[in-house]
């Protein structure tokens, strides 16, 4: 009895204290909902009647995604949903929550559910190929995003953002900025498909420009930025005379930036060229004295949408290529400053090209823009 009384007194006391601390703010504080990840999409007008099967609503499509967690994938799915809605598609979403075995089972379920088209996003080719091939055999149109699927399912349409373009745009800018025959550093990891594709482009540029690569480091872990920073720090301490560093993945770029912060003697002497974009990345690029001068960018909303358009073309029999790449754009620090860009919304407004609404477009497809 005594215990429960003192417990009650303790709880009351805590509540009282908590009450006091809240009372000190005068401002009206409405409970703020987290910023919605759902970007409002604008739908373009179509100028032609849709061919079958899109001449009527209710075409059934499933997306089988390896993971839906995190901002990037929520935005991607938002784009997919908005474009599907604009086309009158009934979309069902299978989310394996990062579990590859579950993804294989869910692909089976999607096929069994009687859809006309399937989008598969991320995963392993070895896991997905049996299901993808079976779907194609059953007459279902399949679009794959960011999986090297054609090595074992040659009839599936493979799509991805163009890593070659992403690297090329940024490295072209880097070559312009620093010129040939200078010392450079490189932060990347081998064995991850998109990073390997960027690596190929990097080697070409190093060769062509006669750049002298003084270091090559980086690691891929659960906290890539944090774990890469000390590696780059060490590399910079032994090679302080580099003029530029290429780090073609934003977590690697972040690690590179924090390593540079630990070397104030290099402030203003080393430029950083990165890849990818997010609101957090934009903040880093426009920060006072930021060495991050250029990056390659795509909008996950737009990618999620263009994949649906590609599937729609394929289902209507109008897709001409079995491999479709989505182009990124170059975003420079100067551009961000001039347009006073602070976040992804600002960037979308300042750079409509991010919508890539002309990719996989047709006069009967109402492209969505964000």
């Amino acid at each position, binding site marked *: 009895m005594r215990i429960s009384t003192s417990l009650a007194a303790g709880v009351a006391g805590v509540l009282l204290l908590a009450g006091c601390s809240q009372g000190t703010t005068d401002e009206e504080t409405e409970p703020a909902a987290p910023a919605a990840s759902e970007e409002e999409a604008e739908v373009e007008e179509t100028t032609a009647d849709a061919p079958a099967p899109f001449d009527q609503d209710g075409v059934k499509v499933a997306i089988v995604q390896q993971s839906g967690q995190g901002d990037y994938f929520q935005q991607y799915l938002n784009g997919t949903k908005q474009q599907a809605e604009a086309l009158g598609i009934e979309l069902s*979403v299978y989310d394996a929550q990062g579990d590859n075995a579950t993804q294989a089972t869910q692909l089976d379920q999607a096929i069994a559910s009687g859809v006309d088209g399937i989008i598969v996003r991320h995963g*392993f080719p*070895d896991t997905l190929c049996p299901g993808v091939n079976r779907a194609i055999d059953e007459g279902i149109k399949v679009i794959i995003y960011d999986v090297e699927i054609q090595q074992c399912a040659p009839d599936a349409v493979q799509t991805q953002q163009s890593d070659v373009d992403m690297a090329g745009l940024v490295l072209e800018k880097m070559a312009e900025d620093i010129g040939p025959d200078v010392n450079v550093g490189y932060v990347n990891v081998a064995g991850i498909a998109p990073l390997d594709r960027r690596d190929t482009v990097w080697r070409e540029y190093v060769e062509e420009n006669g750049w002298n690569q003084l270091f090559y480091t980086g690691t891929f872990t659960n906290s890539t930025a944090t774990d890469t920073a000390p590696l780059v720090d060490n590399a910079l301490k032994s090679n302080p005379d580099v003029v530029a560093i290429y780090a073609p993945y934003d977590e690697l770029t972040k690690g590179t930036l924090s390593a540079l912060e630990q070397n104030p003697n290099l402030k203003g002497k080393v430029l950083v060229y990165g890849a990818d974009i997010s609101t957090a990345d934009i903040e880093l690029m426009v920060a006072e004295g930021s060495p991050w001068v250029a990056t390659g960018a795509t909008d996950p909303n737009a990618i999620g949408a263009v994949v649906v358009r590609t599937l729609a073309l394929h289902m209507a029999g109008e897709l001409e290529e079995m491999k479709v790449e989505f182009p990124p754009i170059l975003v420079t620090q100067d551009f961000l400053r001039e347009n006073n860009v602070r976040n992804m919304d600002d960037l979308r407004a300042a750079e409509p090209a991010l919508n890539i609404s002309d990719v996989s477009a047709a006069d009967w497809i109402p492209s969505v823009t964000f």
Partner: protein
Amino acid sequence: MPEALRSPETVGRVRDALVKYGFIAVTVVLFVFFAATEPAFAQSSTMFSMLKFASVTAILGLGVTFTMVVGGLDLSIGATAGLAVQLAAMTMVFYNLTGPTAVAAVLLGGVLVGLANAVLIVVFKIPDLLATLGMMFVIQGAKLIPVSGQSVSSGMVLRDGSVAPGRFTPDFLLIDRGFVGPVPLPVVIMLVLVVVSWFVLSRTSAGRILYAIGANPEAARLAGVRVGLYRGLAYVISGLFASVGGLILVSRIGQGDVNAGASSLLEAVAVALVGTSVLGLARPNAWGTLLGALLVAIVLTGLTMKGFQYYHQDTAKGFVLIVALLFSFTLSRRKVRYTPAT
């Protein structure tokens, strides 16, 4: 309300019926609801893929059931399944050995992990939860050492620049992708293991001894039972079942996915716990575990078809678990014989 309905006897009978059939009723109601509202749900292909979905969870859950029967819990099963994935991939891809060799290596690995758990718990007297928790971390890390933390796949490039000599053999891939008649092979494996587990636990003296140890180890010891031996046996069985689950996983994924098995632990423990409420047995049992795994598969498949996001599904899964536990722990007049020894 008529007097009879309020009598304690009627209330008691209703309560008993709820305890006994409530869980099965929930499963059936959900099944009928999804089948009626989503036409695709009731198709045989969906049924089989749901059973396939449940197979790994159920098999791992059976291992957990054995350890729960002796009053313990094996937290290393997810990691053991992950170890199985790596062992199979390495045997075939790195060492270019046959599918059957890989199966043998995987099963041996599972038994060894079980033995290690048994030694820690029985000989060194470390509480079950702590010993298997430690083992979980050891395996999760150790399995990645020989592969430098990378997923092993057919045709991968090794550190020295050469291409891995072996690949996943077609016969090995049949473990998940094969059929017996119209029934997927993993479903058959699951059903066989359920029947074997049920038989061992309910129809043999060894099973009665296992339950007796879980109820009161001291009394079992005084009755002349070699408690340590049987507790150890439960962990070896758990390790073995976890490696069978891992075999199905790796055959489904088709490569040595470093993350495989990680999400299986909690799901397996959950279905084994849910299973305690079936038929009012109020104790861990094989059929209950199977039914628990099926319920989870039904809920997840149904909600997915209804267009719910993953966070809705996790929430729903949690509620189903709690409702099932209400049947066995709150309503049941029997004392639930599950007391983790920590």
